[in-house]
């Protein structure tokens, strides 16, 4: 643990490399271990189809982490938008495209509301989104009680099942979203300002950047991405109920943070986030392939992450030794 600025910046790209190596090795190992079953069309399909939501939800969290905030409401919001979309199609009888747009708009609106609340009240974003999370959970339940919606728009569900060149359409959507988010942060003026606010709010303010605007933008974007995750869920799963989104909170943090994004803000890693989501999904699939008790899977995920952590450090040590 040296204290020089040089060594700190040099390591900033390393988690992604480590993750990529682990991801490839893990995938190949699993493919061999399952006797190639992993590479069969159906398995590969299922693998990528259920990778879409973790990627998008991880990005949704990453966007707020970039400005040093957290959004605890991502999961609940995804569920709420999904329920709202299903309700619009089934109960209000609206066509699918309108329901999809409405879900996105709802996500964006709630996200913006989060941001505005954070800016206006100056209350810690953690607490604000915790409060809005509870509120959204209530609303999500209010849409249809504990019952399940299904049998909505055939077209939307067909899209959810569709594949292009062997890859599920929803996964391609997620990748496209990831690319857009990546471009936003690396190439657009607005994205750079967001990162400046996150990296050093005071310095950003001195340069005439409005930190308040950055906060609102980030939360709005996060909500929009939750809306995207909701649309993917509605399309790919065929049925939704008030429990949708309950399993998303922790993964939403895990993907960016394992991917190397700092909680303090100022940096993002789209590749890292996507790779981390990929890894977690790999473990899921391993569980199904070998019929492992999920509790053992938890143990394994834990071990894998700790292993990755240690590997990264060893790599760093080796590299340092060689210079």
């Amino acid at each position: 643990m040296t204290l020089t600025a040089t060594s700190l910046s040099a390591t900033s790209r390393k988690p992604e490399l480590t993750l990529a190596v682990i991801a490839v090795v893990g995938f190949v190992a699993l493919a061999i271990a399952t006797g190639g079953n992993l590479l069969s069309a159906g398995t590969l399909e299922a693998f990528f189809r259920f990778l879409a939501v973790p990627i998008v939800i991880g990005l949704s969290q990453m966007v707020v982490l970039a400005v040093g905030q957290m959004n605890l409401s991502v999961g609940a919001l995804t569920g709420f938008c999904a329920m709202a979309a299903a309700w619009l199609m089934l109960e209000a009888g609206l066509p699918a495209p309108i329901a999809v747009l409405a879900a996105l708009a709802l996500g964006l609106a709630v996200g913006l509301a989060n941001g505005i609340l954070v800016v206006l009240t100056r209350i810690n974003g953690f607490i604000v989104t915790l409060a809005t999370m509870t509120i959204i959970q209530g609303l999500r339940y209010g849409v249809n009680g504990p019952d399940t919606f299904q049998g909505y728009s055939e077209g939307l569900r067909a899209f959810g099942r569709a594949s292009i060149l062997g890859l599920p359409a929803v996964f391609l959507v997620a990748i496209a979203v990831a690319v857009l988010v990546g471009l936003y942060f690396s190439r657009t003026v607005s994205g750079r300002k967001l990162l400046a606010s996150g990296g050093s709010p005071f310095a950003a303010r001195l340069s005439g950047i409005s930190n308040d605007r950055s906060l609102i933008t980030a939360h709005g974007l996060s909500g929009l991405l939750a809306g995207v995750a909701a649309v993917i869920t509605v399309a790919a799963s065929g049925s939704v109920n008030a429990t949708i989104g309950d399993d998303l909170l922790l993964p939403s943090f895990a993907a960016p943070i394992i991917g190397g994004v700092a909680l303090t803000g100022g940096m993002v890693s789209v590749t890292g986030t996507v790779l981390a989501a990929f890894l977690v999904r790999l473990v899921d699939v391993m569980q199904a392939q070998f019929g492992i008790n999920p509790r053992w899977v938890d143990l394994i995920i834990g071990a894998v992450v700790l292993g990755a952590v240690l590997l990264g450090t060893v790599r760093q040590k080796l590299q340092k030794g060689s210079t």
Partner: protein
Amino acid sequence: MLVAEKLVKTFPGVRALDGANLTLRPGSVHALLGENGAGKSTLVKLLTGVYRPDGGRILSDGAELQFGGPLDAQKAGIGVVHQERNLIPAFSVGENIVLHHLPGRAGWLDKQRMRAEARRCLELLEVDLDPDMPVSRLSVAQGQLVEIAKALSLDSKVLLLDEPTASLTGDEADRLYSVVRRLRDSGHAVVLVSHKLEEVFAVADTVTVLRDGRSVAEAEPLEGHTQSQIVDLMVGRAFASIELARHPVDASQTPALRLSDVATGLGHQDINLSVRPGEILGLYGLVGAGRSELAKAVLGLERITAGTVEIHGKPARIRNVGEALRRYRLGYVTEDRKDEGLFLEQPVTRNIAVTVWRRLAKAGFVPDRRERALAATYVERLGIRVSTPQQLAGQLSGGNQQKVSLAKWLAAECDVLIVDEPTVGIDVRTKAAFHELIAGLAAEGLALLLISSDLPETVVLADRIAVMSELRIVGELDNDHDYQRMSQQIIRLIHAEPSNPGTLRPTES
């Protein structure tokens, strides 16, 4: 013409400005002087929209200006280099320079234009830095240069420089001042805040002196004043410079700290240095010569690949600062007070006492009373301006922060002390007091390694001067305290050395 009238600014517990005035004319360089904590930076911040004044007005050509934030000041044509570094660590040099006005095309960042603009500003300063390099890899001084380039990029009518040269050496300062003169000649107004009075007298035309938040001299022409007159104004009474008492060093003693043929992971080669008890060894060099990194290697923060470090004649293997402090009674005052020296969010008391809690503690608990007493001693001794000792270190003026960073190591009562750029941003009076203090410590038998880019300071204080250039010691001189002769010898040493293969290697190659 920019005029500030009766500006008032109060922080909880402190009135930083109490009716300060400032008048700025185009085509002139205006010096803003005052002791640490006099309110110079606060005035600069009011003029650039960082703070809103609690009273008074800012007029531009007779029209009152109201700044809602820094952006408004920029729009009004006021550019600034703040005293504290304000760069976005993860961004590149280029992006930091043009951060005020990121060039875009339909929302997309125009990297080409960004690089070109950044290069233009760096070239003004004759600095050779790659615009794509992340600023987290810059040294303190390089960061300072980027800050200046950033201010230049705005091309504003008024430019405020708050201690721009605090961590620069003469060469770089000279380049900056030639830019400043060029700006003046083309009709810009420049405000210069600095504690280096020689520089001020060399470039400034007029001067405003602040004392306790009030202007005691307003826009007076500098010509016709002597340095000591200005200092008297700042201090508020006649200020006599102190003649340092010198003690002979007993050359027969074992060196308290000795490096023999040391090489480091960063590329230092064949470093031989020794400091005896009661001696001050000056380590002089240009920015980036590798002095700070050498000090860190001695403390175990960088790898030592060859050679030996001896303390009081015994080989020492130091792995961290705690060990250095406890086992070898060796201390290090960092040059980077903001990131490495201070706990900005903690009270001054704790910042000072942190190194001695072990000594103060009774059964593992630190009595507040003893801690307060200790802190009070050093606040008093170094004249640290605090509203209460419980004030957060981050709320002190720059110079006072530096004093706190020093106080911590004086409190630790070490045998060997490495001080790295100790008087950056410290005012004249305190600097003199500090020099006295250092000389006094040496007289008490402390061994001091003084790393300083301030040549006059080095010549005044050191018994011997070692000169470092590009990671090697290029010579060692006995100091006869004659500034003219010593400076010539040192400059010759630095420049005589043929270009050296041992340049500083960045960690990642």
